[in-house]
């Protein structure tokens, strides 16, 4: 039963079906119907993106003008005519010191993106040089039983992204390991269900900020006397606790609502409890469990920013906060860059989960 594995099938499986249409366009194998789908699925989104950027540009420009007028007006009333003329000239010249601080335009954001990348390259080179320089020294230090010297310079934007991803995956795994087994037990036993129901109903709507404070209270006490930086631990535990509810509820629901026919089959075949759970109940509730996990991952990524910000744990959240506090000329643009990066990574994570879900679920619409 070997079936061919084509690029088209794989991309469709991952929810990226438009890629194969794009391929068809370049290879010239596209009929009228397909061309229409191509228009709808590729051209229309691109057009709407361009429209969005255009509107953003115009909006940013008008905000810029309002802010500039206000600044000049203020200079006129506070410092007099001369200062106002000087400020107007300064704004017109584009000098960074006197630019109005408002929503950055798309081109400013793009520039910031490039400068962040440049910054990353510089830091990466610096780090590589540092590691090379200390390699020999570290060898002797480890031989002597001393701690190796590590690079403690400023993390670049890309480093922050990876720190955030690390935190979110740690939190996600925590949620997975708590919520799935617990959900299975709750789904299987009506007694446990009524025991846990109030707990779930009350703690599900609690805000990430409060979860952070709760975890902070507990972890702080537990880690008394240790010099370790607890910010990472606190933030990933908070992320996990915030996001696990969707999985918990979905797993419990999936397990408790297995088709009666399958349960009858399990009874007639006289499957043992272990067999029944692993061969019948779990496979049949997998689609719901995965829907829960998908929600959990996206919630985890969403609350991560707020929690990193509070916990002062390095990552995109802290980056955004620091840029806001920084108030430099391009800080606003950098915040917008971070916003897009957060959005795009969230989208990719969602697609990743969708792919895994399609992979393990028996209800495949496009089986490879």
């Amino acid at each position, binding site marked *: 039963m070997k079936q061919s594995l084509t690029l088209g099938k794989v991309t469709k499986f991952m929810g990226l079906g438009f890629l194969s249409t794009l391929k068809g366009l370049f290879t010239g194998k596209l009929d009228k119907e397909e061309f229409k789908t191509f228009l709808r699925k590729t051209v229309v989104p691109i057009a709407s993106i361009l429209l969005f950027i255009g509107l953003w540009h115009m909006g940013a420009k008008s905000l810029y003008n309002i802010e500039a007028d206000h600044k000049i007006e203020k200079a006129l009333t506070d410092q007099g005519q001369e200062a106002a003329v000087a400020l107007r000239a300064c704004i017109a010249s584009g000098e960074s010191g006197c630019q109005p601080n408002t929503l950055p335009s798309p081109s400013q954001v793009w520039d910031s993106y490039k400068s962040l990348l440049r910054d990353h390259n510089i830091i990466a080179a610096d780090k590589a040089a540092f590691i090379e320089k200390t390699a020999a020294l570290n060898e002797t230090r480890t031989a002597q039983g001393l701690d190796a010297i590590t690079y403690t310079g400023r993390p670049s934007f890309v480093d922050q992204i990876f720190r955030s991803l690390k935190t979110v995956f740690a939190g996600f795994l925590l949620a997975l390991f708590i919520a799935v087994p617990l959900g299975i037990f709750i789904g299987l036993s009506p007694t446990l269900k009524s025991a846990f129901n109030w707990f779930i109903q009350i703690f599900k709507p609690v805000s990430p900020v409060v979860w952070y404070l709760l975890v902070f209270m507990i972890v702080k006490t537990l880690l008394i006397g240790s010099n370790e930086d607890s910010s990472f631990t606190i933030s990933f535990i908070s992320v996990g606790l915030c996001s696990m509810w969707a999985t918990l509820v979905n797993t419990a629901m999936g397990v408790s609502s297995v088709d009666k026919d399958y349960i009858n089959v399990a009874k007639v*075949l006289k*499957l043992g409890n272990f067999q029944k759970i692993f061969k019948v109940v779990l496979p049949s509730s997998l689609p719901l469990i995965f829907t829960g996990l998908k929600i959990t991952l996206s919630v985890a990524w969403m609350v991560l920013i707020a929690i990193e910000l509070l916990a002062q744990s390095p990552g995109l959240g802290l980056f955004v906060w620091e840029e806001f506090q920084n108030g430099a000329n391009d800080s606003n643009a950098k915040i917008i860059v971070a916003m897009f990066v957060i959005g795009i990574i969230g989208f990719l994570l969602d697609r990743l989960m969708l792919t895994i879900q399609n992979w393990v679920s028996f*209800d495949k619409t496009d089986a490879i």
Partner: protein
Amino acid sequence: MAYLELNNIYKTYGQGDSETEVLSNINLTIEEGEFVAIVGFTGSGKTTLVNLINGLIEPTKGEVLFKGAPVQGTSHERGVIFQNYSLLPWLTVGQNVFMAVKEAFPKKSKTELNDIVANYVEMVSLTPAINKRPKELSGGMRQRVAVARALAMKPEMIIMDEPLGALDALTRGNLQDEILNIWGQDKRTALLITNDVDEGIYMADRIIPLRPGPNATLGPEFKIDLERPRDKTEMNDNANFKETRNAIIEYLMDIGDERKSKSTVEYVLPELSPKDFVNQFK
């Protein structure tokens, strides 16, 4: 001692006012090696009866005796073919059968079990589809997998709950022959629940109509004295067949009419009289 015995079975669902008696006073004996068909209307409690015999539910009153011992829970001795196939969609044909075989013969080695699986899948001529999932199969093929799964456990008795109900007439005919073939090989006891009188006559030794529920009970039995193997086309001209068929259908139609004419609900009409229009305008 009868092979399977149902003594004064009553089954009620619900409690208090909403209590309904689905089955009442069911008495049935099946001898070893016999093929019995129970024919009845949809909704007459056939599935409840089957579940009582295979041990999925317990009677409210009365007892089900299998080889002299009361039925308690399901058993590998009684194989069940469900109405809606009930295959596990995440397992392939082979895996579905394998799961059953592994439970039935826990002591056999994996190769032996695989041989049994291959054997029975071959028997229902699904070897080319052994690695397919139920979703990729037609209704008839799925039911054949269910047949293979039930038979591969080598049950002493096969209980079939409208196994062919959801299939088209042609597939139905083929599968009837296949089931009869397999049954004929080692003459296990079989109980077929069906809503098709012709199917019952073609396959069974005895036909017992189930009077429609609530309070469903078994009607008088009809013996089918036709030589096996039976031939469908010849059967149509057989005087004996026609007679039995007409008798059963007449019986079922009669109780059907009875059910229609006998309404138990009494409609209380409000006491109303027409208004006196003339006096109203005075």
